[in-house]
């Protein structure tokens, strides 16, 4: 599956690099938006993990062993965009450092396994697990099929790339210059090994890891009974309601908060005494500082002192003001969320 240098013509390699480049670019942009600064460490670490699991010898039914690329589970856990980046990184390290797969063919290898593989795996998983309960066996089958389908789709693409070489690149005598087999030979030869051994290895790895994660790290595969994010939101709503109910406690506090004095507080004796008591007996100026007096009238709050003028009960006024404030913040947050979601293409 890791196509080495020399099997594909340089023009095929260039086309495959050109096909991969926009996918890498788009994936980088999307993951940067989703993960903020975390993109770098998380994708690097996951790529390293993929690299290491590619070395696992998986015992397969029938007594043989195989290696998995891990694209199925990467797509399920990370989503297709981050997965294609992580697998591309792992393939690049393999090619540059371990000589597994060529440098000129890196674009093709990344396109086949990382890009097409990630989208195939993600699509198959979503399709097969559609509407399945969290604990449903169908999800495990979906994960297995995602791995199996992805690796076979990747193999098919590689076989097509091999198969078109003799048609396009041969010398005057008809001798193929690169991979020598036509589509009629390349596709069955490639698919035989992948429909059996490599496909089985990928299915075992995807289903096995999925089952493990569902048991031990359910949030990672996004199928907790109540999604973790939703649980957090519920707690947040509860806490918010409690804080709203407690807002009338503000009435218990006497006097004005330090530094929140109004110009009129400077003019009356009670206000000046409070200022002096709260400021280590420092005597307050006789009149409000001119700047304070000038700027204090710049903006008149719609709900002065947390109580609309038509409400007589101070406690109810506090509650009403809190609800109004929270509502306003939620509305702004919702609008920003909508705007950000649209900018994200969702």
């Amino acid at each position, binding site marked *: 599956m890791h196509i080495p240098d020399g099997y594909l013509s340089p023009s095929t390699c260039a086309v495959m690099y050109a096909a991969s480049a926009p996918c890498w670019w788009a994936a980088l942009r999307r993951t940067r938006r989703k993960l903020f600064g975390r993109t770098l460490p998380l994708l690097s670490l996951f790529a390293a*993990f993929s690299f290491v699991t590619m070395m696992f010898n998986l015992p397969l039914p029938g007594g043989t062993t195989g290696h998995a690329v891990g694209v199925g589970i990467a797509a399920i856990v990370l989503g297709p965009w981050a997965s294609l980046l992580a697998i591309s990184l792992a393939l690049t390290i393999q090619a540059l450092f371990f000589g597994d797969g060529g440098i000129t063919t890196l674009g093709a290898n990344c396109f086949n396994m990382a890009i097409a593989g990630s989208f195939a795996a993600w699509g198959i998983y979503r399709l097969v697990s559609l509407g399945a309960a969290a604990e449903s066996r169908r999800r495990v089958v979906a994960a297995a099929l995602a791995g199996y389908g992805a690796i076979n789709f990747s193999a098919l693409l590689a076989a097509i790339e091999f198969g078109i070489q003799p048609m396009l690149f041969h010398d005057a005598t008809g001798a193929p210059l690169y991979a020598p087999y036509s589509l009629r030979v390349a596709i069955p030869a490639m698919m035989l090994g992948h429909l059996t051994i490599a496909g089985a290895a990928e299915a075992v790895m995807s289903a*096995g890891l999925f089952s493990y994660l569902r048991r031990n790290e359910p949030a990672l595969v996004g199928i907790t009974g109540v999604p973790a994010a939703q649980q957090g939101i519920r707690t947040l709503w509860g806490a918010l309601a409690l804080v709203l109910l407690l807002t009338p406690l503000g009435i218990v506090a006497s006097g004005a908060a330090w530094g929140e004095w109004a110009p009129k507080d400077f003019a009356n004796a009670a206000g000046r005494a409070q200022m002096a008591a709260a400021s280590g007996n420092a005597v307050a100026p006789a009149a409000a500082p001119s700047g304070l007096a000038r700027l204090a009238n710049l903006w008149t709050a719609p709900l002065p002192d947390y109580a609309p003028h038509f409400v007589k009960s101070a406690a109810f006024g506090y509650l009403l003001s809190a609800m109004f404030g929270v509502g306003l913040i939620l509305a702004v947050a919702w609008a920003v969320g909508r705007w950000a979601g649209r900018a994200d293409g969702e």
Partner: protein
Amino acid sequence: MSANVISKTVRGFSGALGRTLVSENSAHAKGLLQALDPRVKLVGLLALVVTAALARKLPVMAALFGLGVVLALGSRLSLWSLAKRVWLVAFAFTAMIAAPALFLTPGETVYTLGGLAITAQGMRSAMLLVARVEAAVTLSTLLVLTTPWMHLLKALRTLMVPVEVIAMLAMTHRYVVLLTETANAMFESRQSRMVGRLNGHEQRRLMVNTGGVLMSKTLEMGNEVFLAMQARGFRGEVRLLTDFRLRGWDYVAMSGFAAAVVAATMAGR
């Protein structure tokens, strides 16, 4: 049987770590290619790999392979080690793939073997494939064996690879070594506690569960690494310190690479 699967995996890990060590040692040795600016070496050797891919004549591929051997000798690399780890492996793999082409490629029959016709075109195609792969693999291996990994990554900037990607490759490489060691330790400790044999199902469960634990550790480590990076001032932007400077010898090497590429391209069409 059960020990075999774990042993094979552990041997694979040891092999990977061993290759990393060999590359690091040879990259820091004194030699012809090691003395070059990594950017010149990267662009020069990649150009030669592409030239090998473009070549259509066996003597040109043989000459490029020969150039690779000369550069390896000048860089004090062990030819025996190259033969064992690179040439024989590439030959065995490619020959296995190319062999059926002897019979399957249509053309003039030059020999009949057990009732199967070997064609001239089939022979030529198989030889071209093997020669091209050997030449390309030798040249790309030289790059890895004579350049420290971090220098190689920094040199990728000359190919306009984004800084962020280079930083990710550097981190991936670092954690590949760490996670390989972690996985190795997990398998070895499991093996040391194991008596008797596991059946196929149990072996599969052992492998995927180890993978699951490794993934949990990886993601946890990813978060910790991010927090550590943040604590050191990381705000999502990456800057690379590049202190490469071209010297007289690099200009000579650049001219040499360019001459080899032009000559091979002209002769290889």
